């Protein structure tokens, strides 16, 4: 009885994401895969996979059938998960290969030397279905399977890029024109985000500890910080301009430090204020949910207040504090995009340029690295949170 119902639950948990991924992937087969543009401002014409290449359509459909078959066949859970994650990886890499082959050949056929292949709905849907399969099953595959697949995906994409196979893709075109600026903006983006989160850690963690230690402090600190969170980011950036402009007029040394109404300073300050809440809240919560027996044991063994904090409370709270910093980091990498509006650097510059020029490829070029950054940062934190404190059970 028990095993029966267990198996049903398990297979349902396996099937749900599979069904979801397959529906999305199948939709991708029918949607236009690419938009073929004559030049960057051209509206372009859609190109669906079915109309472009029958063999590829068959192959893709087969790829989408495999997960369905696998989820119905009896096999050990981790083997199944490994297969599904593998298929997911194929679905992530395949669209790029299609762009390099079908897309490029269409450009040659239509004699569009300066034309470009802009990824369209079908392209993104296929990748999305791959990501669903991969992220659902890579962990259940256990061991190094997930890591190996990530390395394989990255390697495939990098090799394609390095061999020049992806040059016809629209946002790669945009990137090629701005290669140097891309890297300086990427670094600016990271610098702004890191300075904001870094200072939020320096303020938020002590504030969280203080709120826990001195209940009097808690209310005012929390109401100010949560209040800040309710201001829309765009408005907060705007609000920074006037007071900072005034201050830098008034005190020339501030201007020498680079603090003006627009630019990096207001952006970093606003992003810093946004990062405070998750860090403060997690620090406070991690300390206040701690097992009172552990603290009593620490006191009873003769720890001083300082030893209690540094040898016991902070180490035990660390996983939760780190997840606060993780949330703040991911959120800030995204919000830094908006900072471009008030003259701060960063990848947001490309996004807003693209919006201004009605050039969607440029927007995509700015957005892709932001998304990748956010995912990488999230995973890096997940890795450290899961391993830094071996004795403490954590949610990864």
């Amino acid at each position, binding site marked *: 009885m028990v095993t029966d119902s267990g198996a049903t639950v398990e297979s349902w948990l396996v099937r749900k994401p599979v069904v979801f991924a397959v529906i999305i992937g199948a939709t991708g087969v029918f949607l236009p895969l690419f938009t073929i543009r004559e030049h960057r401002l051209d509206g372009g014409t859609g190109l669906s996979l079915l109309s472009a290449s029958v063999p590829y359509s068959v192959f893709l459909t087969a790829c989408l059938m495999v997960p369905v078959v696998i989820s119905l066949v009896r096999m050990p859970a981790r083997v199944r998960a490994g297969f599904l994650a593998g298929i997911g990886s194929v679905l992530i890499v395949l669209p790029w290969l299609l762009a390099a082959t079908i897309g490029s050949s269409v450009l040659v056929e239509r004699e569009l030397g300066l034309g470009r292949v802009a990824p369209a709905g079908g392209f993104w849907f296929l990748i999305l279905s791959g990501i669903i399969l991969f992220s659902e099953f890579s962990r259940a595959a256990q061991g190094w399977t997930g890591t190996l697949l990530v390395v394989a995906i990255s390697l495939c994409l990098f090799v394609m890029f390095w061999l020049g196979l992806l040059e016809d893709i629209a946002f790669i075109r945009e990137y090629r024109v701005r290669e140097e600026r891309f890297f300086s903006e990427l670094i600016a983006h990271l610098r702004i985000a890191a300075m904001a989160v870094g200072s939020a850690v320096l303020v938020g963690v002590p504030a969280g500890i203080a709120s826990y230690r001195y209940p009097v402090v808690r209310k005012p600190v929390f109401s100010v910080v949560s209040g800040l969170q309710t201001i829309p980011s765009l408005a907060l950036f705007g609000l920074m301009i006037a007071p900072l402009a005034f201050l830098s007029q008034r005190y020339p040394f501030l201007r020498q430090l680079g603090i003006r109404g627009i630019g990096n300073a207001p952006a970093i300050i606003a992003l810093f204020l946004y990062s405070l809440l998750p860090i403060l809240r997690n620090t406070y919560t991690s300390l206040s949910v701690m*097992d009172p*027996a*552990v603290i*009593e*044991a*620490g*006191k*009873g*063994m*003769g*720890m*001083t207040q300082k*030893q209690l904090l540094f040898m*016991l409370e902070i*180490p*035990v709270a*660390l996983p939760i504090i780190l997840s606060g910093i993780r949330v703040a980091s991911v959120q800030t990498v995204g919000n830094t995009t908006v900072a471009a509006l008030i003259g701060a650097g960063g990848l947001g510059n490309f996004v807003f340029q693209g919006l201004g020029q009605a050039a969607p490829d440029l927007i995509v070029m700015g957005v892709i690295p932001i998304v990748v950054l956010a995912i990488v940062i999230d995973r890096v934190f997940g890795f450290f949170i899961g391993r830094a*404190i*071996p*004795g*403490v*059970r954590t949610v990864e």
Partner: protein
Amino acid sequence: MIEFDRVVKYYGTHRALDGVTFTVPDGCVTVLIGPSGCGKSTSLKLVNRLLEPDDGYVRVDGRPVKSFAVEELRRGIGYVIQSAGLLPHMTVQDNIGLVPRLLGRDKTWRRTRALDLLELIGLDPHSYARKYPSQLSGGEAQRVGVARALAANPPVLLMDEPFGAVDPLNRETLQNEFISLQRKLKKTVIFVTHDLDEAVRVADRIVLMQDGLVIQEAAPEELLGHPSNAFAREFVGTDRALKRLGRFSVSDYMSQDTSRVESEDHTSVPASATLREALSRILAVPSDQIPVRDAQNRILGSISLEAIRRAGYGGAST
């Protein structure tokens, strides 16, 4: 020796301790017992100053605890609590070495000490030293909690319902282990519990408390034999005579005479058992006495219903 001298403690307006006076002699186990809210845990925490009294004195070896620097006092007193309170981010070995670390002992010393103590409490040092608390069972964690309290070799041990969170079967094992450990170590122990059977098993002396007052301070046999008032009588229960038999050992009351023992008797009792167990076994056979065997299963003599009755009635033991 630890003395409580007219100690008063308030929680807000509630008088948790109402002039408590008792003494804890060196080298034996004094159990504080009573219903919840009687002030037993509060009293315990006054010794290592997790709480401070509002009036009266707590003295250790004649010196008021107030006169010690609080951290120093605590490092000199072993402390065991109900849910073990092991630090989750440290290995078993580091948990045990914590007080020595606070006292500035070096790493090698702490490691050796931790391994010795694991041996002493009956956990294999090499498989347990590097485990984390989350990998231990409740009973194992509690043993490590005791080892940690012993690490700096303190003369005094405070135990706050140390086995309260362990299942009954394991609890009895832990109690027996504690009793044999205490026979070797002769610490001055204050042991808080609300479980009378546990108290009778481990105590040299029992302090019975109710509503912040000491009702009776006596040896377990005395408390069970002569409860001093109605509350004490009710607390020790109607089976107090039986419980009292649990304090006496078969070996002290058996007769060496083996002539009346039939060798084919299946029911026998080990010499190390209590009279309570012996009685229970005699009641299950038609005869008035059963053989007593040693650990090697050899017959040493017999124990009779008559001998048990004499012990229970308060007859002198030999």
